[in-house]
């Protein structure tokens, strides 16, 4: 399979087709492939089917811009900087976005199954909840569980009995194998080996579970360097299809050892997300109003970005003002 191909952000977004199923690296407001998300919005992609273990600012940008048709996940919000997903919520309330709720660990089960080439993964977590209410199977209600879409399982879940130790009932969760994994990674070697710093979230599984993988790399580093500590790497080059070198590519989400979450930016976005009009204005300024990632960074400005810059020993910014004191 060889070494992944280096492409530009524009080329990367151009690969994604309307209606494709996407999944992402990161966790809520950390290590999201934001620069690529913006470019997808700029290119006006439609009817996207998102599966994500949890959502965040990137979800809201896509939902606000009208790119999302189906959202399967467990959570959306901006943590401290915006309690709920207003754009997605609006789409859901208006019936424009089909939502399939799973619990967080059920989503992990689904992506693990996808990563391991298994059709399902078992779990006993979150039984006895309305997540499992057959009346609330929204993809079924939408007539989408007939097997015609290979990305949508014929059932939301299955209840089975343990045949080995009489533990009782538990659940099987269907695999997810998205068309695309859009990944932001801390470092990528010149032959494609991928590393993320600190927590790995579900990045390892997301890469394996997708048909095609695009990695936004904060840095591209010598392959011999990244192979000095192979226990810290999460994917080999043969598991990656395309690489985009893209410093600050996760902004406004955070990237351990590079930069913190941009709290002010996220709060402003959250405010804007509360109405379509305000969102559109925000997108006009921050997405359509800049023609490239470089222009976006210039617009943010050096002073702002330096405040977010991580202390290289601690892994997070020790200069950004986080609270009231």
């Amino acid at each position: 399979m060889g070494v992944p191909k280096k492409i530009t952000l524009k080329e990367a977004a151009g690969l994604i087709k309307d209606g494709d199923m996407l999944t992402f690296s990161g966790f809520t407001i950390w290590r999201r492939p934001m620069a690529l998300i913006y470019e997808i919005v700029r290119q006006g992609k439609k009817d996207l089917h998102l599966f994500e273990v949890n959502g965040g600012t990137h979800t809201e940008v896509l939902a606000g811009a009208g790119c999302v048709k189906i959202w399967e996940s467990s959570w959306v919000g901006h943590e401290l900087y915006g309690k709920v997903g207003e754009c997605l919520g609006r789409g859901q309330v208006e019936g424009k976005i089909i939502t399939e709720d799973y619990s967080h660990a059920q989503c992990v089960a689904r992506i693990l199954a996808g990563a391991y080439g298994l059709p399902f993964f078992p779990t006993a977590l979150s039984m006895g909840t309305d997540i499992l209410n057959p009346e609330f199977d929204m993809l079924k209600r939408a007539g989408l569980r007939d097997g015609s879409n290979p990305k949508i399982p014929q059932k939301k879940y299955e209840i089975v009995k343990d045949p080995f130790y009489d533990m009782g009932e538990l659940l099987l969760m269907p695999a997810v194998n998205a068309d695309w994994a859009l990944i932001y990674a801390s470092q990528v070697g010149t032959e494609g080996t991928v590393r993320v710093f600190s927590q790995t979230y579900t990045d390892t599984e997301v890469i394996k579970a997708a048909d095609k993988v695009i990695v936004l790399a904060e840095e591209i580093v010598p392959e011999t360097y990244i192979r000095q500590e192979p226990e810290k790497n999460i994917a080999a080059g043969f598991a990656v299809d395309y690489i985009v070198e893209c410093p600050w590519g996760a902004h406004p989400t955070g990237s351990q050892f590079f930069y913190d979450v941009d709290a002010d930016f996220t709060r402003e976005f959250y405010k804007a997300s509360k109405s379509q009009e305000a969102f559109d204005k925000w997108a006009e300024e921050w997405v359509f109003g800049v023609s490239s990632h470089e222009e976006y960074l210039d617009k943010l400005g050096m002073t702002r970005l330096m405040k977010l810059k991580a202390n290289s020993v601690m892994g997070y910014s020790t200069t950004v003002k986080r609270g009231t004191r």
Partner: protein
Amino acid sequence: MTAKNYAKDYKPMDLLAVAAAKEVEDGDVVFAGTGLPMLAILLAQLTHAPSAVCIYEAGTVDGRAPDIPTSVGDARCAYQASIAAGLTETFYGSLHSGYVDLAFLGGAECDKYGNVNCTVIGDYRSPAKRFTGSGGNPDINSFARRTVFIMVQEKRRFKEHVDYITSPGWRIPKWPSGEYVPKKEVYGKFYKGGPVAIISNMAVFRFDEDGIMYLDTVHPGFTPEQVKDNCSFDLNISRCRGETETPTVEEIEILYNKVDPEGIFLP
């Protein structure tokens, strides 16, 4: 042991953090979320539970950053952690594996069985309003031995029936029929425990032998009747033990100077 020196001045948030911290036993493996749960576990570690261990669902075990994390996915969670991995490790390698003793959780609505909603207002199929969704709430609540909920007390939030059962309390639907049965019947030999307390801004609630919520203590300034008035269901106040213990000067000092000196969760 000297007599406790109770603080004269404290905010409602301080009382909640202190009450929640008291639920931690030394040596507990604790699953905590962003905000008050972090204050509670960090305060507990600095007082009576130095060997309690905290797991954040994003992938870290027992981080020891000098600065409180702003979210469970934060770089701060990984600093001097025992393990930095991912959600497969925390949800399957730790939680499903059976290591978790205690968890702190939140919610928008609850019923008297401790069923919690953090998904929608209204009919799920055409909701009036969406919240964040479940996150790990039901996962953690279903497999931790003891869970403690921290919630805002309002009549419309303490309901006879929640609009959607996001997180399983003591009487829950068994699918596919949806018949309500005790939690143990749904979880079989996977059963480990469930909600032991709800801490609101007015009171501390616990659950009786039948898994029904009762008033345990009221926070200073409130009466049992006021609390009952702020529940839509018929709250049992007969077992109320009196007032919730208030924060000590030392606890306040630790909270504001050691746990959250930046004023992130304690402005």
